[in-house]
């Protein structure tokens, strides 16, 4: 079954009507994720867009067709651990958490869970901020980005710090499997998710790039285009780390300048040439690090 057939034929385990915004790629990613992970899955979703969109449920109804629990914002990985310890290994125990819950307040529990090598799958959908509460900055927000807590004014120029590189930080925890995924590259996405599901000997971390039309300021029809541009500019390189072996799954021989991505949305509209260059330098350096890890100096 190729990935298109899989996405067509596998049961959609998410409610058909979520209140995620028009063109939200996190909704797409969650549906694709559960199509691959299947019915023998227990899902944890901390507060954030997907929980807010009704994917956990409302009143007496569930938002998913698999068992689902809304964890606290900061304890998702620990709850996964507990479920997994209680169940043993015959169930896929996974989380679908935003970047705030992952890179900020949930990081301590995530880091420890990875260090202990728990056999659970932690998936972060990275929309670069606390979008569900109105686009406040997170550690995962790209430098220069205007957010509701890093507004642009006479003095303010958006977020002043570079994006926290969570996938690489998690890679240094020596997980059994780690990958970056983009909804723009669904074949790669499905392959990685299948690999994640097959891992039985340790911790799995997946990081999905998830452009937010509402928060970032672009037309929802362009969500996939923006995600693709992030890959093409090396802002979000696609790679995997399989038991310590680094591999660029979508090699990028001729990266496009980050300015092409910056030009696609309102959140970067105010950023100066110098501001764009800062991010370009950071992205170039990060990519070199990645190439060194892959072994292509």
């Amino acid at each position: 079954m190729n990935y298109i057939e899989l996405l067509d034929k596998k049961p959609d385990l998410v409610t058909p009507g979520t209140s995620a915004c028009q063109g939200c790629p996190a909704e797409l990613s969650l549906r694709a994720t559960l199509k691959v992970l299947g019915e023998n899955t227990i899902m944890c979703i901390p507060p954030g867009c997907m929980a807010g969109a009704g994917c956990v449920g409302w009143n007496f109804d569930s938002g998913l067709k698999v068992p689902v629990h809304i964890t606290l914002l900061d304890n998702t990985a620990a709850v996964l651990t507990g479920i997994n310890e209680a169940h043993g290994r015959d169930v896929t125990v996974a989380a679908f958490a935003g970047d705030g819950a992952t890179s900020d307040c949930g990081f301590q529990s995530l880091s420890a869970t990875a260090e202990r090598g728990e056999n659970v799958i932690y998936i972060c959908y990275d929309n670069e901020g606390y979008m569900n509460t109105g686009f406040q900055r997170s550690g995962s927000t790209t430098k220069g980005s205007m957010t509701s807590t890093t507004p642009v004014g006479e003095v303010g120029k958006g977020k002043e710090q570079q994006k926290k590189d969570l996938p690489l930080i998690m890679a240094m925890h020596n997980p059994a499997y780690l990958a970056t995924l983009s909804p723009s590259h669904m074949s790669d996405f499905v392959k990685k998710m299948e690999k994640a599901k097959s891992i039985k000997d340790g911790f799995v971390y997946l990081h999905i790039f998830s452009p937010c039309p509402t928060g970032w300021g672009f037309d929802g029809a362009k969500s996939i285009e923006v995600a693709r541009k992030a890959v093409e500019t090396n802002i979000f390189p696609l790679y995997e780390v399989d038991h310590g072996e680094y591999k660029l799954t979508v090699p990028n021989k001729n990266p496009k300048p980050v300015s092409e991505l910056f030009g696609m949305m309102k959140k970067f509209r105010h950023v100066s040439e110098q501001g764009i260059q800062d991010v370009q330098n950071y992205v170039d350096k990060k990519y070199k690090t990645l190439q060194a890890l892959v072994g292509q100096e």
Partner: protein
Amino acid sequence: MGKTIAITGNTAAALGAALSRPKVIAAYPITPQSSVVEYAASMIADGQLQSSMVQVESEHSAMSVVQGAAMAGARTFTATSAQGLALMYEPYFRMSTLRLPMVMAVAGREMTAPETIWSGHQDTISVRDAGWIQIYVEDNQEALDMIIQGYKLAEDKDVLIPVNICYDGFYISHLYEGVNIPEQSEVDAYLPPYKQEHVILDPEKPMAVDPMTPGNLVMKYRKSHLDAMQRAFAVLDKADKDFGDQFGRYYGGTVEEYKCDDADIVLITMGAMSGTAKAAVDEKRAQGVKVGLLKIRMMRPFPKQQVAKVLADKKAYAVIDKNVVFGWNTGAVYMETQAALNQLGYKIASLPVIGGLGGADISLEHMTNVIEKLEKMNKGDDEQECYWLED
């Protein structure tokens, strides 16, 4: 009949937990609780305990791990103290409001600041309104026994509320006493395996555990929780009786009375200081003073009927609190006792006492001083301001 050995309160707590056969244990070390974690780990390392133990990075995660395990149907155990409990507060509240039964031992410790690691009740008292049942014990044997009874209480279908077994840091956690360790087979007979039915994370039976819930339903869930709290009195009494019938040790359920029947004045205590209080009562009784002791065993839910029953015909009582209620210049047990008596229509002269904070000594002399104040009140002295047991 088991065997009797000299062990610390922490070892007693770990043994009580082990005898209850938890499937998942998650804990993080903190003084004075650390040796609970160490002892449980060593039992697992020696193959004496078949639990999976998660060495978490914080108490926040300890409670989160056991919450996850409990949602998947496992019996769980953890232990902590003071700052650890404070860090745990967020999942602590979640555990009780998801009505997930478990037992957590708390080696009671004063809250920082001032920087301290020593004994106190402030840690658990500060979270007494987070939906847990809280039981305070007096000695090592009671710590072990109440952890086993705690599961019986927590897992009762009429209750389904997690239980704290609180024992004073150092005074109980680190002191050696002779403790009878029951046989595993006897504990198994008393405490059958737990099967969770109200929520379960299992792909065979998909459900959302804790979907978004509007206020009108939150009201219903809260009321149901409060109702279950009220049912816990009777369930504890039964758990106590069944335990006594099986193991020969009865504790009196929600409260323990000591020489209260003909008493005019009563001391009220909670936890380890009760032993000293009993000695003070004996000493004063020898001098002809009609004094008794009421030991509060269950702080949450507060056994107002049982407390009022004991105090109804008394002339005066004093409550010695090893905690404070900021803004009231008394401790919590005093306030709750007052509230109970007021609600039930009793007006009795009373004296709030605070002592033992941060491990400060509560001496026999302190106790007899309190009794002497009560004697004066019994002879007509006015109700007094809070009495601090200072050096």
